[in-house]
């Protein structure tokens, strides 16, 4: 090979690499629209339902902020992101986005100007939605009041602060297409799967994530964590020691108190409030689908009973009598008046990890203005660590005496640190 062909080959390889890099890393801007189109009221109403099912407002509204104007911090292992303004404000929102630009963002995770969106925006799931639903959400979002709210600066750690790297993440994980109905299943089951995998993006929290923050494909809905809470496995819910019936799951999904399991708390609370505003048929479909999911795992082996020390038991018992019994004791007034659950059977107390029980005690369940409940006061400032541990050990001994939580103190310590 003479020098000339060598240079030629090198040049060719360089150009090829450049083209590949361009193809992977570069996305064109899509022309801005200057006139916000108008939509018919029916389409806007359909879009509002899809947006509710997709929980757009849960992330895209900060506490005390304007609806859908963004600004909520999302704390990830890779740094802190702030959600963006998705009102139709031309300058700071999506007012200049055409239907094509919006669809590309939903399906490919690319903003109108061509920059890559972080996958905290669940486009892996939204890409599984139908064209009709995406068009309806667009109509709904573009018809709301525009709010001027510039994006907050993200604080991502190196190397995830380099946005184009998301392109490689997409190469690895973005292989999702609109969901095709399974004709061997019922219409309700198919609707449920569509909501769970599409707009609802349940796996975003309920599947474990790998080291670069993607859902582990082999462990679909097998349980993950979010904001310091456990997002429990959704597999085999119908055949657990304390099984879920469809009615119970529908009630839970819609924010009600379900005597046998409790009520949605933590990050699931706003999701359940959204589902409560949707027609009950949506929660029924989700329950139909979720309860059909089976688990390959067996119920964990029962370990030998290990009682908490007697002193801790008695401290836990008297704390329960003082702080909890008014709502949660056998014949408590609040159980009779307003359906507060007994604790023996709640999912949080039967779970393998004490995390959700401890979080509920620390943070409570916030009251909604104008709503009678369910609500629970936070006890983070009222009870010290020894008291919470004694309370947890006492209640666990009531609900699951064979399996005391081994890691109470460490888990509580972690949660207190995270709350700082």
């Amino acid at each position: 090979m003479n020098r000339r062909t060598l240079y030629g080959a090198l040049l060719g390889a360089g150009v090829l690499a450049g083209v590949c890099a361009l193809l992977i890393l570069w996305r064109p801007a899509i022309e801005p629209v200057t006139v916000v189109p108008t939509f018919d009221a029916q389409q806007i109403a359909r879009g509002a339902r899809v947006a509710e099912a997709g929980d757009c407002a849960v992330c895209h509204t900060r506490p005390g902020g304007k609806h859908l104007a963004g600004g909520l911090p999302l704390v990830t292992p890779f740094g802190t992101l702030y959600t963006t303004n998705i009102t139709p404000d031309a300058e700071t929102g999506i007012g200049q986005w055409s239907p094509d630009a919006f669809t590309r963002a939903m399906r490919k995770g690319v903003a109108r100007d061509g920059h890559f969106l972080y996958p905290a925006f669940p486009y892996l799931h939204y890409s599984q939605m139908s064209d009709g639903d995406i068009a309806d959400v667009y109509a709904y979002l573009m018809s709301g009041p525009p709010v001027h709210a510039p994006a907050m600066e993200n604080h991502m750690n190196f190397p995830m602060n380099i946005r184009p790297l998301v392109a490689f993440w997409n190469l690895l994980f973005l292989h999702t297409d609109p969901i095709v109905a399974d004709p061997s299943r019922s219409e309700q089951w198919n609707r449920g799967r569509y909501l769970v995998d599409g707009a609802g993006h349940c796996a975003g929290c309920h599947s474990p994530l790998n080291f670069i923050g993607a859902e582990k494909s082999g462990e679909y809905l097998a349980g993950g964590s979010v904001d310091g809470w456990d997002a429990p496995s959704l597999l085999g819910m119908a055949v657990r020691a304390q099984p879920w019936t469809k009615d119970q799951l529908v009630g839970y999904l819609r924010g009600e108190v379900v005597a046998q399991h409790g009520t949605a708390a933590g990050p699931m609370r706003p999701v359940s409030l959204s589902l409560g505003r949707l027609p009950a048929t949506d929660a029924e479909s989700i329950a139909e689908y979720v309860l059909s999911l089976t688990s390959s795992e067996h119920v964990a082996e029962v370990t030998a009973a290990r009682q908490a020390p007697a002193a801790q038991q008695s401290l836990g018992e008297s704390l329960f009598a003082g702080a909890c019994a008014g709502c949660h004791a056998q014949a408590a007034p609040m159980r009779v008046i307003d359906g507060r659950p007994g604790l023996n059977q709640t999912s949080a107390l039967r779970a393998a990890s004490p995390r959700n029980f401890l979080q509920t005690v620390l943070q409570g369940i916030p009251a909604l203005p104008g709503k009678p409940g369910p609500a629970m006061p936070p006890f983070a400032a009222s009870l010290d660590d020894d008291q919470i541990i004694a309370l947890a050990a006492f209640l666990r001994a009531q609900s699951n005496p064979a399996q005391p939580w081994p890691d109470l103190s460490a888990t509580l310590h972690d949660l207190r640190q995270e709350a700082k």
Partner: protein
Amino acid sequence: MTHLTLNVNGSAHALDLEPDMPLLYALRNHLGLNGAKYGCGLGQCGACTVLVNDKPVFSCLTPCAGMEGKRIRTVESLGTAEEPGELQQSFIESQAAQCGYCIAGMLMRAQALLEHDPHPDEEAIRAHMATNLCRCGTHLRIIDAISRIARREVPHEQQ
């Protein structure tokens, strides 16, 4: 009985108490601080609200045993009848008290909000105050009183 030292409104008080005694009883019966009220005893009404390390808690559900070393503040820390604090003055100007039973709790919960966020909007005030009830129905006047402080130009001074 256990020997406990409670730090209330800036003073240390050595007391012999049952460790599971609610903080409210210690404040009222042992320290004579009768501002915080017993309403429901269930954490449903908020009349017993006091601040522990700047966070509002229901003192009827808070056992004394965990309170050592914590900074407890009651309505008596805000001012006196002769010299009301500015939040108390605002409640007076808005005529926010009817029977007055809930007001000590309302004041302390509002105080916690204003120390954390000096300029909350009405939505934030409503959300924060949602756990405290007034059976006379003066909620609108209470919100008005808090809003007046929240709208001031001068940032709210921390206690």
